[in-house]
Each structure stands twice: as C-alpha cells, then as structure tokens.
C-alpha cells in the first residue's frame, strides 16, 4: 500500500524531485506499472479542459466616483451587469447580451476585451441618496482601472456532458452548435481522458479550496457548482480566479448562432496521487467515459436519448446512429485542453504551483431536480379553437373568400376529400389571387407546406414555432393529419395577458 501526504508531495515540488504527468500520459503508466507501481512513481496528474462554459462571469469593483453613486443599474459596452450589491460592485455574466448589438456581442466579449487591454464604456444610473447623491455616471475603464476583477463561475467543468443531434427536418441552432436536419451531425463537449472530474469521480482530491489553473492563472475551487448532480456523474464546480492575471489564450468569447454568447474557459486541475485508488482513477480512458446522445429537436427538459456512446467513439469523428454513420464534432478544443494539462505540469515541475487538499469534500450523491411550476402548464388543446372552418381543395377561390367574410376567420385549413390537411389559405392569399384576377381553385393558391401543432404540445413551444415561421395561426392536427382545431397568436396573447 502506497500512502503519500500532500506535504510530502509539496516538499518534492519545492526540492524539484516531483514527478508530474498529464492524465493522458497516466493511462499508459498505470497500464504498465499497475495502480500500485504508478502511485509510487507519479506524484501529481494534471488534467485540462477548454470548452464553452455559459455559467461564467466576473465581479468588478469600479472604485468610487466624485460625488459617489450607488450604481443601481450598470452597463459595460451596452451589456448590462448585475448590481444590487453595495454601491460600485457589479457582476458581468458571460451570456448577457448587448442592448444595441443583440446576439453579436455579450458579457463574454466585454470580459475578453478587458483581458486584451481594451477600455470599455461604463454607464450607470441611480435614484440618488443623501450619501450617494449622483444619479448618472459615464466613464471608460480598462482592467487596470478596476480595484478587483474576480472571475466567479457558478457552474463549470461538467464531469461529462450530453452529446446532441437533431431528428427534425430543419437545422436548429443551439448552445450545442448548429444541428443539421435528419440526424445530420452530432456535437459534444468535454475533454474525455483529460477531463478534471472524470479523473477523480469520487472527489477524493477535488473540493472546496483546491488550487487550480483557471484561464492561465492560479485560481481556486469555491465548492460544488450549481446543478451539481454527483449521483448521475454530472458533478460541476464553482471556481474563482483573478481576471487581471489571466490570458486571452485561455479565456475567449464565443458566439453561438441563434443562441447567443458564451465564454470559452480553460481550466486545469492537478490531482495529487496519494494512493493507488487515486492512481487507478486517473487512468481513465476515453473508452471508459460514457454519455448519451440526445435529440435536441425536442424542445423539452426530457429530450429522448437516442443511444449511449463513449468519448472514444465521439472522438473518432463519427458514430453510428439508426444504421448510418453520422459525423461528430467537438465544441471544445482538445488541443488547448492538452496545452493546459502540460502547462500545469510544467508549473508544478518548476516549483511555481503547489498542490492542496480540499478543506471540504464536494457532496456525493446529490441530484438536481426539475423546476416546480405552480402556474400550471397550458397545452394547445386548452386554448385552441375547436370550431375551425376548413375548405376542400377543389373549392373555388370565390367560395373561400365568402367563407372568410362570413366567419371572420383569417386562416382556412385546406383539406382533401377524406378530411386530411393538404394546405392552408389566408385572407391575404385570396386578396392576392383576386387582385391578379385568378378565380381558380383553392388548391392553386394555397400554401402546401403547412406548419401545424398538436393538441398535446405546450403552448410555449407552439408560440416559438409561430415566431420562427412568421405566421399567425397553426392548424392543430391529430395523428392522422385531420384538422381538430386552430391556434392563433391572438389565443396565445390572451392566455399570457390573463396571467399578468
């Protein structure tokens, strides 16, 4: 039995005799020497990861102005930071979006701009008090001008993360990147063999107070991250570090089309090899880490799992899905994860970084539950109108016009003889046909690609569909594509109006 203490390892770091390897190198060492031999041989294993971590941000302290202001709302380059804590402190979140540039610029970009030495425009407003009389403030500040710029990321370094694909007929844009239609690609995140928490899944050495590599500087683990769900191997970490000491090589703003901004964060965690159990854990390979491929076309918390997969398969460039080879791509950089694990290894070998034991272990066996919703969820069938008037496809345009006039419905679903939905005509289509002197059949002027809804879908999901397609009503169909109702943006607005 090998037993080492943190003090022994730190003494070796001090005298230069420490043996540090990366988690990738450790796989072979344990393979050759076994866990016992490896734990005798190796003192520290370094991990690394470089991925988009939305749950990131920085606490700024701006210093006091003259006369002073109690910043109640503050914007940096037009991106709002969170205030409501003392007078001149604010937290800039990575995914907060610019009020003028929308999805193209966000909190992550403010952080990267500051890191690159640029100044940002700070605008603050206040109601004014006896002690803080000022009501408006405008200035321009660089990182050097801040008293503190402390990165605090509430949820980082997921132990592992789901892979994503899309079974629908359209490309969707998500925080997992663009997902092509009909299972066109699979995206995933995480560094597999180098992933910090996968190398210490029992949190023997990773916990509150552990010293880490964060963004190119020394940082610390604050404790469990939000949504830490250790029971399902979905542990997360809350981390902190000094932004002023970080480097834009390891902290980068990202921009996911249709989703918004996020922050690429580079993190490395050293694992002191105190005994063979820890040595064994750090021998984890891509093939040992499994995750699930989820269908992100289902806009729900419970996305269907298409299959289980290992990181080895994901990293190979393709996986098999429903009998086909589907291309995979990572959203995190393995090259940079490797660079981080090596840099941390070098820091330790050179005596610039000492390892630490946690002052408190991370909780094991926690799970994260879904939100309790007290308002009750509305389904399409609750608010759709069932008295829907349809028209047959071989009816005349004149007849359609007449129905629209009589019923005041703006949308007529078009059906075949056996009542199956085949198209839709709107008052607009009819006016257009009339203005062009076309009085033929409804079939000739209808839109054939009808966007529909089902009765058991949630209203919130269908509201988004209306928005996406820029239409104002959807026929509601059953499994046989028969029209059973219609839902309009008016019905939805009324529902939301009732609630406010």
């Amino acid at each position, binding site marked *: 039995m090998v037993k080492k203490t943190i003090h022994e390892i730190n003494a070796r770091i001090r005298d230069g005799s420490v043996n540090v390897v990366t988690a990738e190198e450790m796989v072979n060492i344990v393979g050759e020497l076994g866990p016992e031999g490896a734990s005798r041989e190796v003192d520290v294993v370094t991990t690394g990861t470089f991925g988009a971590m939305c749950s990131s941000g920085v606490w700024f302290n701006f210093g006091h102005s003259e006369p002073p202001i109690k910043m109640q709302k503050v914007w940096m380059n037009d991106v709002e930071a969170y205030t409501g804590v003392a007078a001149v402190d604010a937290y800039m979140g990575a995914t907060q979006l610019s009020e003028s540039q929308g999805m193209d610029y966000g909190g992550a970009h403010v952080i990267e701009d500051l890191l690159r030495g640029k100044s940002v425009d700070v605008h603050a407003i206040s109601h004014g008090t006896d002690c803080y009389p000022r009501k408006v403030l405008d200035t321009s500040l660089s990182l050097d001008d801040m008293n503190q710029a402390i990165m605090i990321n509430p949820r980082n370094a997921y132990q592992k993360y789901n892979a994503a694909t899309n079974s629908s007929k359209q490309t969707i844009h998500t925080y997992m990147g663009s997902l092509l239609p009909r299972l066109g690609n699979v995206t995933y995140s995480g560094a597999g063999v180098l992933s910090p928490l996968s190398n210490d899944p029992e949190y023997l050495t990773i916990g509150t107070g552990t010293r880490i590599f964060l963004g190119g500087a020394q940082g610390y683990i604050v404790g469990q991250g939000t949504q830490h769900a250790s029971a399902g191997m979905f542990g997360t970490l809350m981390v902190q570090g000094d932004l002023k000491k970080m480097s834009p090589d390891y902290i980068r703003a990202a*921009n996911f089309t249709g989703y918004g901004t996020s922050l690429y964060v580079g993190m490395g965690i050293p694992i002191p090899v105190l005994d063979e159990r820890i040595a064994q854990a750090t021998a984890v390979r891509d093939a040992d880490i499994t995750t699930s491929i989820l269908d992100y076309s289902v806009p729900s918390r419970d996305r269907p799992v298409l299959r289980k997969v290992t990181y080895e398969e994901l990293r190979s460039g393709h996986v098999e899905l429903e009998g086909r080879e589907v291309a995979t791509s990572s959203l995190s950089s393995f090259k*940079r994860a490797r660079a981080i694990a090596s840099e941390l290894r070098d820091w330790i070998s050179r005596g610039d970084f000492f390892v630490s034991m946690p002052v408190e272990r991370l909780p094991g066996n926690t799970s994260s539950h879904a939100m309790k919703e007290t308002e009750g969820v509305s389904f399409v069938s609750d608010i759709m109108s069932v008295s829907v008037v349809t028209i047959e496809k071989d009816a005349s345009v004149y007849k359609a016009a007449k129905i629209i006039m009589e019923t005041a419905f703006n949308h007529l679903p078009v059906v075949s003889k056996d009542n199956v939905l085949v198209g839709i005509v709107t008052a607009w289509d009819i006016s257009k046909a009339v203005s062009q002197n076309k009085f033929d059949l409804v079939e000739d002027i209808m839109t054939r690609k009808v966007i529909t809804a089902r009765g058991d879908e949630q209203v919130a999901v269908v509201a988004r569909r209306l928005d996406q397609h820029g239409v104002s009503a959807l026929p509601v169909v059953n499994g046989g594509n028969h029209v059973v109702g219609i839902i309009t943006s008016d019905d939805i607005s009324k529902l939301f109006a009732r609630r406010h």
Partner: protein
Amino acid sequence: MKIKINISSETVVKPIIAESILETGVLLNVSQAHFDRSHGEIVADVMEEHYEKMYKALSSRGARVTRLDSPIEWNEEECVECSACISVCPTRVFSLEEDYSLKVDKAKCIQCGTCVEMCPQRALTLINNK
C-alpha cells in the same frame, strides 16, 4: 466555375433557368437549390468561357448572379480549434491533424456557408455569403 443565382419572389414562378439555357445553349450543372415563398437560391457550375453569356441571359430575366470564386476564409487568430466546423461541412474541408490542430482544405469548399454559422468564434467567412 461556380455561380450563385438569386431569384426574387416575383420571378420565382417563371422558368428563367430553362429559358436561359435554351437561349444560350450553355449547360448549367446545378449543385444546390433552395426555394421558399420569398426567394430562390441556386448554386451551379458553368464553364468559365460561357459565364458572360449566361450572366446576361439570367440578369435580363431579373435574377441576380454572383461569381463564387473565393472559397472559405479561415482566420487562424480567431480560431480556438474547437473543431465544431468539422461535422457540418458537406465536403469535409475541415479535419484534425495528429496533434489536434485544425486542418482546412480550401480546395474542397463548395461555398455553401454552413460552417460560417457553426463557428462560435466567427473565424470563418465567405465573401459571397450575402
């Protein structure tokens, strides 16, 4: 060479491609086409020496024709080598080297623009992607 033909909603119903082919006698090899209610977009191959003729025929019928002669541009400074672009490119322009650096084989690019949307760093641009 490749060209992109954009057609507005008024002309989308007219057989302008067929008419242009008949008028010029030049063959077009359509590699991609996309239509919706508001407009149509076609990517096609045409021989360099026939481009002018085809350009005139299509333009006179209301289409907007652009030459697609610049493949994808990759800004290495911006790229973080996340490799997200790999899985969306239909012609496998992107791959990873042994050391996990991104490799970009521009010659294979058909300028579809899919990777431009995928890249979280805005490190990929297509001049003709407007």
